[in-house]
């Protein structure tokens, strides 16, 4: 358990029973979570789960119905804090929302102005990001002439022109072709290396698993939160699969004496649930060898993030 004082120093986003209702519809229900400084936090959930609503509340674009939220050092809720919060965050919305009749450079420069950056700061950051994202040669081209991938990269650059502490990204790779999506993912990983705090809304499980330090699964309510590995284990735990040359009754009896859980036999293969395979597997191997068995392979498996996700989301629907 983290010390609360330390937690306060390192949490960049904190919500406590954060709720948003639209009339009778509850879009976000009692959301409690923390995102650490420098962490990439993935928010997974189906369409309509409340991911965008959460981001909008945290970006002070819409109000909360109840609960509390803090972004950086500021509580979400007051008009004064809203302006302070917007200064330290960057938002990449699900629609890139670029000014298509402005050039790439003009788009960035305009936003730099809105973030009260000086001329020299804007010039420097515009050039840095356009070069970093491979758009420098296209700086004088209208954003409307860009491909989807280029637009998405420009939208990310736009959200970073003021060097924000926290970056909110809402489905940054949705509707992108695989190559563009890969480019965007690589850029997010680059930002991760720069220790930016990133709050990433996605419904791409593979993306979440590859990029995020921790993942929250939301379906109006927060169903689970943890590292991708923790979420995978949370569903079925881990399993040890032992492949034998010949599986017979004495071997099965030997394993039963160890009181293994959920033993399943399939041909010459036996699968059992394990909590700590490093401690439990040697005992099983010894028992099998003592019973005259010859082991070909021992594999430890866990359920996939996809399985975990679907189980949690479907449980919530029921």
């Amino acid at each position, binding site marked *: 358990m983290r010390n609360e004082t330390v937690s306060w120093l390192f949490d960049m986003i904190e919500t406590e029973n954060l709720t948003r209702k*639209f009339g009778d519809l509850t879009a976000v229900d009692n959301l409690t979570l923390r995102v650490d400084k420098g962490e990439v936090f993935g928010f997974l959930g189906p369409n309509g789960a409340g991911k965008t609503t959460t981001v*909008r509340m945290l*970006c*002070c*674009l*819409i*109000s909360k119905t109840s609960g509390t939220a803090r972004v950086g050092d500021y509580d979400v809720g007051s008009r004064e804090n809203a*302006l*302070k919060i*917007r*200064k330290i*965050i*960057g*938002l*990449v*919305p699900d*629609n*890139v*929302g*670029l*000014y*298509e*009749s*402005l050039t790439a450079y*003009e788009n960035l420069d*305009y*936003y730099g*102005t*809105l*973030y*009260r950056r000086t001329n020299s700061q804007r010039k420097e950051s515009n050039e840095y990001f356009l070069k970093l994202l491979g758009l420098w040669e296209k700086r004088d081209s209208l954003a409307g002439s860009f491909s989807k991938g280029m637009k998405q990269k420009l*939208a990310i650059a*736009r*959200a970073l022109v003021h060097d924000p502490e926290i970056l909110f990204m809402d489905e940054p790779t949705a509707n992108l072709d695989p190559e563009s999506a890969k480019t965007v993912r690589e850029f997010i990983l680059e930002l991760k290396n720069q220790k930016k705090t990133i709050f990433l809304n996605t419904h791409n499980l593979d993306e979440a698993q590859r990029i995020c330090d921790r993942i929250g699964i939301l379906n109006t309510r927060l169903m689970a939160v943890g590292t991708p590995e923790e979420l995978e284990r949370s569903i079925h735990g881990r399993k040890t699969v032992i492949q034998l040359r010949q599986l017979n009754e004495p071997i099965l009896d030997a394993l039963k004496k160890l009181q293994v859980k959920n033993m399943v036999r399939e041909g010459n293969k036996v699968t059992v649930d394990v909590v700590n395979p490093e401690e439990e597997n040697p005992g099983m191997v010894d028992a099998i060898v003592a019973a005259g068995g010859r082991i070909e392979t021992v594999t430890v498996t866990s359920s996939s993030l996809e399985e975990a996700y679907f189980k949690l989301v479907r449980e919530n629907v029921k």
Partner: protein
Amino acid sequence: MTTWIPWMIARKELKVIGRKRSIMFYNVGLPLLVAVVFSLEIKNLTASGIPASLQFGAEFIIYLFVLLATVLPSTIAAYSIVGEKVEKTLEPLLATPTTDDEILLGKGIAAFLLPIISTWAAASIFMAASDFILINAGLGYYYFPNWNAGVMLFLLAPLAGVLSIEVAVLASSKVSDVRGANQIAGLMFIPFILILIAAGEGLFTFNVVNLLIFSGIVSIIDVILSVLNKSTFNREEILTKWK
């Protein structure tokens, strides 16, 4: 409110508008066309001497420039707001530390400046051309500028321009395309046309007192709509209730 931010927003708006040929033609070309056409009309009317109805005719034409000021700003204001809504550019804009007032004012400045300046420029061309024609036709004095034209162009036209923008902003919250916003904003053209019809029927006279009263009424409506717009144009409303 940071005073220079609205100007930066207005500068961006004008840059975008400057690249939209139809909006530019409408806002710059139309007033110039009116100036040229009615200067030629003055020339035709004075072909056989100074007409007896010179005052009514000249003021009628100046009032046409007021009508332009009631229509043109709404085209830019509607594009500036509904256009952002259609192109999904509002959300990232609203996520910046810019206040609702700064955004609204910036867009208002852009929508106001171009049409009002082009209206003034076109009216000046018309007045100069008319004076030249009238002097040559035998009028012994410069007809323009005069108090009626001054009140119409420098008081009523800007107030009508502001009204046009206010209505366009209100309309923008209810429609999902620029044309729809323009159509709703165009409704405010009606009371201004009614004044023109009333003048034609002899029920209204273009004199300084009447024009000041009319301007006063328009300014009161401007203030009321401005308060309404402040409650309509806020982040929560835009992101959750605007169509």
